[in-house]
């Protein structure tokens, strides 16, 4: 690795040869404002916001695509550079609609942020602004407001370079330029939601999130998406004990800056169709809802009529390392079974690609593998009744029905098809309501942290299990 020595704003610095001025400045805590540059995409150099002055270079240069060289002297905060920054802001704002009061980007908008930091000069544009279409449905849940767009082309480059489906392009010329799909087409790539993430202004917004919450009310918890075994790092944005949206979190070794739409919009299951109270079967087959204590008592009574060899424990690849360990440890050491089984989420024809999405739709099969558990299909013939950690797969559910097995206790976060064969359902927290770890497809153990407190009466599985065996 060749390092070069250079100066930014009279500070001596070093960096690896080839580093851009912008990144070198960032590493030393100097912010160079920019719109079109994104570390996960190719460099476009078209917004011109990152222009800086370099000694011996007559014209200002774009710091995003100019590498630092030995002895380079850079200035990012002279009056000349500040004037350039303010002038680019002025140019960007002359046709930009004053939508802030109704625009979702407010609070996380680079035009707002940079105006406050690098401009603050009142407008002197008194002509008619360029008018364009303000509600273009691009498909895949992405809405485009053409007037707000600053034609930075981040979204165009994202679709072409990361999603590998060049579904967006720039149409027309000059200040009538607009981002569009090809005529008659819609976006359908599985990562389309990321275009909303990369858009630095409110041009691209999520149809799902629009008008729901002002972003300054949202809090963020770092987490891991449980949608497949990739384990994309995410942020859970929440308020009022509800999850409003998920965003990808940068991890250069796992998901870079991205996540897929399936994972992104699965947040709804954190809010909807939840199992938050314990319930058990009445004699007529209907459900009785009650306290955890009452439900546990029902379960104890049910299990008492079975011999130890007739009861099996089924762990789940949907749960955290800690929850699986607690469940398996209880089964082996407290209940005293010889082998523990497992089930998982196994939809038909699962989609996968070479980008992020794996065919294994479980966040933690790697941990299950480590513990040498048996698939449910290999269930010992003596077993008559199951204690199940989470939802059974479709085929495992069919197996249970075919063998006429009872699910004495089902631990659940949401209402699922499994409920039909369960006798007692006990609520457990979702991944958003607890701390823990998932082990991804590469064996990487990744932590996730609680955003919310457990909903309703949900408690950790080990608490339920302890109650189950307590006298």
């Amino acid at each position, binding site marked *: 690795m060749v390092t070069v020595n250079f100066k930014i704003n009279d500070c001596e610095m070093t960096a690896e040869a080839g580093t851009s001025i912008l990144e070198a400045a960032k590493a030393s805590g100097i912010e160079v404002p920019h719109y079109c540059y994104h570390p996960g995409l190719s460099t476009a*150099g*078209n*917004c*011109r*916001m990152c*222009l800086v002055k370099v000694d011996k270079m007559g*014209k*200002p240069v*774009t710091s995003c*695509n100019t590498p630092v060289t030995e002895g380079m002297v850079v200035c990012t905060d002279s009056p000349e550079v500040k004037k*350039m920054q303010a*002038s*680019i802001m*002025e*140019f*960007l704002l*002359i*046709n930009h609609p004053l939508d802030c009061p109704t625009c979702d980007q407010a609070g996380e908008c680079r035009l707002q942020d940079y105006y406050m930091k690098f401009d603050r000069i009142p407008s*002197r*544009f008194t*002509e*008619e602004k*360029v008018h364009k279409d303000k509600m273009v449905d691009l498909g895949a849940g992405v809405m485009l407001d053409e007037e707000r767009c*600053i*034609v930075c082309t981040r979204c165009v480059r994202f679709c072409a370079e990361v999603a590998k489906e060049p579904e967006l*392009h*720039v149409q*027309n*010329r*000059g*200040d*009538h*330029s607009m981002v569009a799909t090809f005529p008659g087409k819609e976006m359908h790539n599985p990562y389309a939601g990321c275009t909303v993430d990369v858009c630095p202004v409110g041009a691209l917004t999520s149809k799902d999130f629009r008008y729901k919450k002002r972003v300054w009310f949202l809090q963020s918890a770092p987490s891991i998406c449980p949608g497949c075994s990739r384990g994309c790092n995410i942020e859970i944005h929440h308020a009022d004990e509800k999850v409003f949206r998920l965003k990808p979190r940068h991890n250069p070794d796992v998901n870079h800056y991205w996540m897929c739409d399936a994972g992104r919009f699965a947040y709804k299951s954190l809010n909807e169709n939840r199992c938050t109270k314990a319930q058990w079967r009445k004699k007529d087959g209907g459900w009785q809802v009650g306290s955890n204590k009452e439900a546990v008592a029902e379960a104890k009574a049910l299990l008492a009529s079975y011999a130890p060899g007739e009861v099996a424990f089924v762990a789940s690849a949907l749960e955290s390392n800690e929850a699986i360990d607690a469940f398996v440890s209880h089964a082996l050491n407290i209940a005293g079974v010889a082998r523990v089984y497992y089930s998982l989420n196994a939809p038909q024809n699962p989609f996968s690609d070479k980008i992020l999405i794996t065919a294994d739709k479980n966040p933690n099969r790697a941990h299950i593998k480590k513990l040498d558990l048996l698939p449910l299909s290999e269930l010992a013939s003596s077993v008559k009744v199951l204690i199940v950690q989470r939802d059974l797969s479709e085929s495992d559910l069919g197996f249970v029905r075919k063998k006429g097995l009872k699910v004495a206790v089902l631990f659940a976060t949401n209402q699922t098809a499994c409920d039909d064969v369960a006798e007692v359902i006990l609520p457990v927290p979702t991944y958003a309501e607890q701390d823990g770890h998932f082990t991804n497809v590469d064996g990487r153990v990744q932590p996730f942290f609680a955003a919310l407190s457990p909903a309703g009466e949900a408690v950790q599985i080990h608490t339920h299990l302890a109650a189950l065996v307590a006298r």
Partner: protein
Amino acid sequence: MTKVLTNRFGLKDSHTLPVYESTGGYVAVKKIFSMQPAEVITEVVKSGLRGRGGAGFPAGTKWGYIPKDSPKPKYLCINADESEPGTFKDRYLLELDPHQLIEGIIITCFAIGSNCCYIYCRGEFDLATKRIGAAVAEAYAKGYLGKGIFGKGYNLDVTVHRGAGAYICGEETALLESLEGKRGHPRIKPPFPALVGLFGCPTVINNVETISAVPFILGQGADSYRKWGTEKSPGTKLFSVSGHVKKPGVYEVPLGYPLKDFLLNECGGISGTGRLKAVIPGGSSVPILTAEEAWSANLDYESLAAKGTMLGSGGVIVMDDSVDMAWALKNLSLFYSHESCGQCTPCREGTGWINKILQRFYREGGTPEDLGLLNEICDNMVGKTICVLADALAMPVRSYLQKFPEDFARHFRKA
């Protein structure tokens, strides 16, 4: 005087191969096969031939930038996207003497080691495209293009490609993007096309008029070319003259020729009111000259640069004193704002803003503050963009405001 470029203008069927060959064509090209490519480049460097598209960069020097040891194929692109307002010389070269260009292409490709040339022709040029296309076909049929040209072991393919109506595609890197099937957006430079050009390969892009001079230089020698012109601006140039002159048209004159003589002799004198007010010497992208400045100007690169303008493409637009400069400037601003590719912020928004101000200023009147704002917008555009289209509007705007303040003051609204 024997000219370099326009010798066949006026001959019947001058665009055909038989007429070209019967008047001395395809003779110079045969010399190169007993020369080294480097020798050809040296001759062109000696001649001092400068790019005739507008920038005036020494052609031979540009050819020398092509890396000789690169394993990549080399390309020659002929910029026939003539779109600079006031310029119509390349069109005549293509319509009336296309074989001269083809002979120049063959020599140039040999010099830079290229076996493939694209002629990027302005989409609106119907007759010109037909004529150059037909000439290329004639050359192939005669074995002057294709495999083993002139019976030698050199292969050369020439393809005529039509543009689709964008002035910006005359910018060399936007031209390359367009040739590659993409939107005509200028590229960030460096890297320059000589290293990373068409399809990422070393490429020379030259104007039609530049390459059309190459057969003369190889045929008669660099010294013959230098018989005309000045030390730093050797040779001859085509000037496209329009506006208030009695004889508008395309003229070939030696560089250094006084503009006054040109307007009064070749161009027949000022028409209209007969009183000269202003001259644009090199296409609408260069600063304008007052009549006083024009009467003392010489038509070469250095003299015009010394007067704060440029020789540019040699598009001479002559205006008499009936022309309102506020009207003329708003015509220009409409053009540039319409043609901006839209890639970078200062040009995309700045050209649009300048145009809106000038249209409104002319239509409804304005204030001195409008003019101050125009100058500031120009300052915020120049030097901040990916290509010089922004400068091509900003520099003229500054010159009109500075040199013709009365024309704008006439539009100030009464308080």
